[in-house]
């Protein structure tokens, strides 16, 4: 079950090329057989537009944002989906091991194992996993990086339909190289490949000509991965038990002995 990631794939999103058509969101719904209904309200909704959110039915959105650039108002279109972290928080915090990575680095969720504690939702640095709140037996829902397509050497559904080549698919090294080459070739780009270092790196990478903070990306993420941060404490688990048990045993024996001695002295005084 625990595959080693041997063939890490990536998608490089060039936000300057995205025109906000939403083809990727439709391809996602079709490939994953999801309806366009909002799970809470039951109303049919597009997954691209000005006020769109990921939900259990919608694994990717394209958000239309009006932002400031060089003193002018401009539109930018931001595709959102699971970032497929190289060291995923969701997977490391899941106490039922319901998440695992495929050889291509797709972070997979197995509803069979899920207990529904929702720790993955709150731990995800990008707030990606969503819940089927309306269901009696709910599961967590998120982009699966079209893992079966990736395993067959194909690109994910969204990237395969992008009409403007805003979504480029390949190995992570290739995509990182391409990202840096693109940034160097044109000075309109911000010199930052989002996802290269954030929380230890992600499979999805973004380049942009507008500050990532303005586009709704979390910009306060540490470079240290979430699992490593948690491990900063959990590494002490077994030592704590060992030291605790030894200390209590020692203290108990010592205290008993001291009581016995005190008792003895008390008797002698009489």
């Amino acid at each position, binding site marked *: 079950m625990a595959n080693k990631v041997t063939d890490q794939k990536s998608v490089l999103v060039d936000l300057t090329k995205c025109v906000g058509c939403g083809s990727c969101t439709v391809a996602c719904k079709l490939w994953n057989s999801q309806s366009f209904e909002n799970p809470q309200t039951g109303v049919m909704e597009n997954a691209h537009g000005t006020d769109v959110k990921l939900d259990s039915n919608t694994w990717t959105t394209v958000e239309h944002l009006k932002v400031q650039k060089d003193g002018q108002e401009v539109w930018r279109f931001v595709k959102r989906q699971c970032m497929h972290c190289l060291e995923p928080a969701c997977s490391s915090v899941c*106490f039922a091991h319901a998440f695992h990575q495929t050889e291509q680095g797709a972070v997979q969720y197995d509803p069979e194992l899920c207990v529904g504690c*929702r*720790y993955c939702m709150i731990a995800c640095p990008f707030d990606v996993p969503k*819940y089927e*709140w309306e269901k009696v037996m709910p599961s967590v829902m998120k982009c699966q990086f079209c893992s079966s397509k990736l395993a067959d050497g194909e690109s994910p559904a969204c990237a395969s339909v992008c009409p403007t080549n805003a979504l480029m698919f390949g190995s992570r090294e290739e995509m990182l190289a391409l990202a840096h080459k693109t940034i160097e070739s044109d000075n309109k780009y911000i010199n930052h490949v989002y996802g290269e270092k954030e929380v230890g790196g992600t499979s999805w990478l973004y380049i942009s000509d507008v500050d990532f903070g303005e586009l709704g990306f979390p910009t306060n993420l540490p470079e240290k991965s979430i699992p490593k941060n948690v491990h900063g404490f*959990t590494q002490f688990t077994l030592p704590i038990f060992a030291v605790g048990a030894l200390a209590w045993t020692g203290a*108990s024996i010592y*205290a008993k002995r001291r009581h016995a001695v005190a008792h003895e002295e008390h008797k002698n005084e009489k």
Partner: protein
Amino acid sequence: MKNWTFKTPKERWNFRVTPVRLGMLAVFVFSLVLIFARYYAGLGEWTGLNDEMPWGLWIGADMNVIALAGAGFSTAIITHIFHVEKYEPVSRRCLLLSFIGYVLVLLILIIEIGRWDNFWRPFVSPGIHSPMFEVYMCIVAYMVLQVIELVEVGAEKVSPKFKKKMHPIMQVVFIAACTVPLGHQASLGSLYLAMPAKLDPIWASQMMPWLFLLSAFFVGPCVAIVEYIWTNSRYKMKIDTEMLYGLSRISAVLMAVYFVLKGADLVMRGQLGNVFAFNLEGNMFILEMVLLCVVPIIIHLIPFGKTQGGLLVFGLSGMCGLVLTRLNVVFTGMSAHIGSLGGGYFPSFMEIVSTIGLFCLAFLAYLYITENFPFFYGVPGDSDKKVDVETENEFNQAIM
């Protein structure tokens, strides 16, 4: 001196019914109806939980109950490890209080989790890197140990012979039961190490697990003091304020340690400015520290701290402070992030009533168990100890 065996209560079993108890039962039954509705229609329909705020009142309640149930753990360390005999009257009740607390936690969790039918999965598919896994395993292990300890107490009344048979293993059980909670009390703090960029920096520190462990430990005596004063005055039993003052000293010293550690943590991470920023997070943090450390320590240092009223305020302040530390992490510290997602949360009627209902159940369980089993006295059968016959009689009259 004749060996004293436990005689109270005089009737073998006692199930007193009072209007208050009936009321609590009614609230519990009503909450059961709502809980069934949640199982029938799902979490979305009946709770205020949502994608932006997937953890709410129930998780907040659980974090608090586990920490307050640390009373069993810290008083056990004092009496069963360090063998400070004068505190034995409180450690046994705290064991029960703590066990009932953990049962309450599991009951709340089984409503809270989405796939309650999968509760056993972590045992066969363990996510060993998750702090939640450690919390779960430790709580289950601890409850098994607590059951053994409680069987020993029950056997005292039902079958003293069996209690004697258990004697050889008890010291090992006590040591194990004092070790296991180190795991889950600390892990509860490490749950939030996974949200370094979401939790407000006042709380988001690598020190969190250690601070959670320390605070759960020193709030134990606070719970013990409040419970002891409340129960003993209710049943007209003697209140040994000198003993309680000794207990409060253990707490007060560790509170001072906590205060210094948390202060050093804030200074080292350069977060002291945020504390005095006069915003929601800063103010709530100051309130938390005042209730958890400052007020109890001051009370302990003045003569008022030796009186029954002073001890009660000491205990209550510490408990309220602890509740705030946990709620501040679950709610206050996360609120800015939730807001930035355009989300919000307020517990639904069902969440509130089910929580109150289950607390009522826990309360009733505590009343009936203590009125039927030997929890309120020192260790019986021990020839070194005398029992206060007068108190014993008063106890019988009070519960009749």
